[in-house]
Structure formats: C-alpha cells, structure tokens
C-alpha cells in the first residue's frame, strides 16, 4: 500500500509534465491540423536559451523568464511566418514534413550556439522533498505540475471565452468557412505557434530544471505523442487527463509488473494501454468524434 501511494504520486506529478509538453502539441493541432514533429527540438532550444540568459549572461531569474517567453514568442512567429505560411492550402502531410526539417535545423542551431552538450539550469524551485503520508516527492515536481495546471487553465479559458480563441477553434474546424467570415487565418496560425512555443519553453525549463539540459529532451518531445493521441488530439482536457493517466500507468504498472515480466516494462505499458483505448475509443478519450458524410 505504501508503494502504491508512492507510485500514484510520482506518476501524477511526472504525468503533469508530459501533459504540459503534450499541450504544446495539441495547440497547433487544434488550430491547424499540423502534427508538430519539431516539438522536442523546440523544448531543447528554449532550454538552452534559458541557460544562455541565466547562466552565461547572468540575468536574474525573473528577467530570464521574461526573455525566454519573448524568445519563444519570436520563435513561434518566425517558424510560422517562414516555414508554414507559404504552405497554407497544401497537403497537411507536407506541413508535417516541414516541421521534421525544422527539427533538424533547430538541433543544428543548438549545436552551433551552445556546443557545451550538457548543462544545468540554476535552481529555480526549492528542492526539499514533501512528505505525503508515507510517500515522498520533490517540490520541483509539485511546482512543475502546478505550473502546467495553471497554463492549462489559462489556455482553456482563452479558447473558451476570448474572441481569438473561439476563432482559433473555428479555424481548426473549417479553414475556408472562417476565411469567408473575414477572420485573418494567418494571425490565427501565427498565434497558435506562438502559444505552442511558449508552452514548449515552459515545459523545457521545468524539465531541464529537474534532469538537466541534454539532447535527450528531443525524445521527451516524442513522448508527448502518446499522451496527445491518448487524450484525443484536439482536446486540452484530454492532454491534462491523459498525461497523468500515462504517468500513473507507467508507475503503477511498472511497480507491479516489473518483477513478473522483466525490467523496462515501464516504457511499454503506455503503448499497450493506448492500443486498448484505441480499440474502444478510436478518437482518444476526449477527442471529437467526426461524423462523416460521403
């Protein structure tokens, strides 16, 4: 029972971080139906940027955070303006492949600008562990979970009530129709990329404050795919539920199955669950079911 509590708490906390990264993915999908394969690289480059500002340029933390956000905004704008806007109206798969190329490009930039290979961000959160019953968790995870929850609430409110947010949802639904309503679709895409980059940057800072900055962050980006798809690609709430769910399954599943099946089962469990979910809920947990007509 003690272990179960520990697994649950760790799983939930780690899952919230997955959810945050996944949120960045869902944002772009929701407004433009593009799967962003460069997500991991976005996380990586913003982590390094934060490192450059905080450690190399010795800015105070608050100024560093602001500059990271500004950088993310610029990055999002530039990516949309120079790689995706010329492709509006082209097959979606081409847009996806463009993000793949973009990923390589960003990775190259990281190596050119920061040939340091591995680094640590300054301590952003208090590190003393918190005891919950018999379980224990570091405050970093709690902070990370809290921040991703806050971002999620902000974004949901924005999409629910703000005019632009509603327009963004509409854009995902029917690009032609929304253009006919004189909504500037370019601005919508631009905005969604900016948001996605901000979310990725936040995720990057949170993750690298826990595990350091390495190129492994790219693979962390891939991890979000499973979260997003489990939650339903176009659903924020899906991400926020699926993230912790995957975290939980990983931890609890690994907790009780490792001794039976063997080490490393942790990485497999989310996928097995996803396949099962797909068989019963083909559009993810919270995805919108599309009614099709011929």
């Amino acid at each position, binding site marked *: 029972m003690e272990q179960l509590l520990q697994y649950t708490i760790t799983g939930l906390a780690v899952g919230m971080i997955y959810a945050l990264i996944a949120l960045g993915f869902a944002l772009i999908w929701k407004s433009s139906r593009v799967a962003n394969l460069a997500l991991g690289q976005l996380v990586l480059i913003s982590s390094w940027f934060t490192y450059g500002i905080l450690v190399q340029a010795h800015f105070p933390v608050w100024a560093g955070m602001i500059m990271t956000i500004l950088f993310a905004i610029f990055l999002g704008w530039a990516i949309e303006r120079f790689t995706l806007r010329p492709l509006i109206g082209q097959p979606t798969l081409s847009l996806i492949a463009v993000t793949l190329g973009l990923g390589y490009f960003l990775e190259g930039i990281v190596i050119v600008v920061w040939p340091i290979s591995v680094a640590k961000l300054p301590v952003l959160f208090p590190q003393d562990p918190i005891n919950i019953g018999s379980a224990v968790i570091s405050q970093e995870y709690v902070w990370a979970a809290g921040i991703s929850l806050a971002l999620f609430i902000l974004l949901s409110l924005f999409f629910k009530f703000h005019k632009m947010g509603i327009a963004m949802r509409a854009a995902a639904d029917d690009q032609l129709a929304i253009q006919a309503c004189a909504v500037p679709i370019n601005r919508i895409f631009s905005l969604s990329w900016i948001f996605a980059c901000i979310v990725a940057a936040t995720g990057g800072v949170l993750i690298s404050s826990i595990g350091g900055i390495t190129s492994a962050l790219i693979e962390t980006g891939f991890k979000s795919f499973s979260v997003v798809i489990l939650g339903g690609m176009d659903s924020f709430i899906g991400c926020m539920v699926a993230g912790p769910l995957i975290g939980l399954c990983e931890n609890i599943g690994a907790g009780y199955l490792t*001794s039976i099946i063997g*080490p490393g089962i942790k990485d497999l469990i989310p996928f097995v669950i996803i396949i099962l979910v797909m068989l019963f809920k083909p559009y993810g947990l919270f995805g919108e079911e599309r009614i099709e007509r011929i």
Partner: protein
Amino acid sequence: MKKHRTFTAIILVTVAAFVFTFAAGCASQTPAGKLDSQKQLKIGCSICFTGTAAEKGQPIGQGELDAWKYINDELGGVDGNKIEIVWYDTGYNAAIATTNVKKLMDDGCLFFTIVSSYDATASKEAANKAGFPALVIFSSPSLTNPPAHIYSQLPDYGDDWAAFTNYYLKNIWKGPGKPKMALEILSNSTGYGVRDAAKVAAADLGVDIVTIEEHKTTTLSETDALTRIKEKNPDILFIGSTPAPTSVILKNAYQLKLIPGMTVACGHAGFTKALIDLSGKQISNDVYGVFPTVNWGDNVPGMAKMDEYCKKLHPQYVGNNDYLCGWSASLINAEIIRQALKNSTLDVLTSGDSVAWKAGEEKGFRMVKGYDVEGLHGPVDFSDPVDRRGSKSVKIFQIQQGEMVPLTGWVDAPYIKYE
C-alpha cells in the same frame, strides 16, 4: 512563375553542392595538393558530434582533434611524420556510422577511432569484415567479444561493474554471506553492457543481483524503480547510465532516503563533472564512481599540455573527463603509429588498403605494450591474444564535498569471459 524559378535555382544550387561535395569526397582519396613522394599517414575518426549522444561526442571528439593538433603542430607529428586526420560526424545514426567506415577505408586511413559504443556497434561488422582495425573509446562488452579487429581504449561498461564489485567486496563489505546488489541501467548498450557482465560474472565474483531496473535517457523520475529497489533492500546500487539520468536517480534516491545508508556506484559513462554539476553539492560520501582515467588537474606528465590546449581551444570542456578520454585516445593512436613505423615501413602503411590495415594492426596495435598514455589513464596493452581492451585499469572514486576523490590507484578489472 517566380516560385518556379526559385525552385529551379535551388535545385541547381543543391545539385551543384552535391557534385562539389562528391568531387571533394573523391578527391580526398588522393592526397590533394601534396607531393606524391611525401607520403602522408591518415587516421580516421568517426565521432558522434551531433545527435542524441552529442553530450558525450562533443567533448570526446574535440579532445581527440585537439590532441592531434598538439601532436602535429607542436611535436611535429609522429617520428617526423605529420598525420592527416580524417573525421566524420555520425550524428548517432547507425546508417551513417556504417557508411562512414567505408569512407574512411576509401580515404586510405590506416585505422580509425570510434567514440561511442552505439556507433561502434554499427561500424563493427564493416570493419571486422575488411580487417580494418578500430579503436573504440567508450565500449561495451559486445564489441570486443568475440575478439576481432575492434580494440577498446578503456575498460568497458561491464568492467566498471566488475572492478567496483571487487573493490566493494574487499574494502566495504563487512557482513557475512553475499552482498545484495541492484542494477539501475540505461536501456541501451551502455546499460546492457553492465547487465551482460553481471549475468555472466556475478556468481563468480560473489554478489547476488537482486533486481535489475531500466530507464531511458529521457527519464524525469526514477522514484518508482527506486521504490522497488528499496523493497529488495540491496546493499549496493550500481547505476550504469549517462550523467543526466544518473543525477535524476541520485536525487530520487535521496528523497526516498535510500542514501545515506546504501552504497551507490556509477559506471564511467555517467561519472563525470557533469554529474556533479547536475546533482548539486548534496551528494554525500555514499556515492562511489568508477572512472578509467585520472582526475582533471592531477599531477601526471600529460596533464599540462592537455589543460593548455583545452583552455585555448575549447574552454567549455575544462574539467570534463570525457575530453581527457578523447585526448588520450589520440595519444594512443600516435603510439600505435610509432610502433607501426618502427616495425613496418611507411610505404606499406600508406598504401591504404588491406595490406596497410593488416600491418597497422599486427605491427601497430599488437606491438603496443605497457604504454603509459603520459599518465592520463591506466597503461595500454594490446598484445593479449583475446583480451581486446587496451587499458584494463580503473580507479574507484568517491564523491566528497562535490569533488571526485580517488580512493585507489589503478585497479585491474578482471577479464570477463562471455559465452
């Protein structure tokens, strides 16, 4: 129409670039711009500068290349022969690593070095088939077993484990019976090297492996694995991983109060300055590490030059022992060439095909006996008929107040027989 033209222009530029690199690639087979009479020895380097393992490939690769600069510019080459270095980035991509080997063969290299065990695994068969000898800097047991044309510079990940286990049994273990050990390993050849060694040799050495846990490079929390490990109540936790995941594991182990109390040991892939940077000063005396080289700044003959070059060319790697490994790899290469020149002729060695490779291996590699690598790591010996490890020695370190303090001199890692 404008778009059409831009596209054509870009296609033309790309094609031109293809042709250019192609021509350059072919041209480099013949020593361009050199007098034909002046034969140049070539050494290949296959380095993972980019990709997932860039955190290791960058310092090691730059260390290698800087050492060659030192050897060529300051020492005037090896026995008066300047050495040409041909290097390619593998991008930690198995396909590129494989074709790189062929490129290095075509370029007329005498032998080549590989940085990571991943790239080496990809290059292994191509090199072995052709008899093209290779020196692997960070290797895993699968590369040198069964012995063929791949040599490893340092003890492999499995040897780390064996050496530490021996040390533990002799110096730390007080209780009766066998100590219980848990492995927390990375799910790639770095970690599996430890697993494979433990499977073969645990019983002989006298430890019980109570549980094996795996993690990925991306891990954010290993609390769950450590919870399971805690349940088994082992005496030792051996971590076979790279710095970032190792620091996560250590952090979580502190939270779960596994440390202080349990002995923790890290394999050499994860036991660098980066580990201490990442985990902070909180690491206490319970953390041991195995590393096959001396510490940065130790008083050994080769240290001053390396420090000087590193500060001059790549100051960001000062204090990084990976750089030291790369640097010493090139020193060993130079020694191999020295032996080869002594026992064979320049004509044979520069002929650039299987004759040269054979000479390089038999007259070069195999003749290296007890080379001290200017004190940077354990003595290198490639003359053993089956044991393909150059240096067989590691040092056991302990982390004390954020410093890696050596506890031992060179400790020999026992040769483990696989299968």
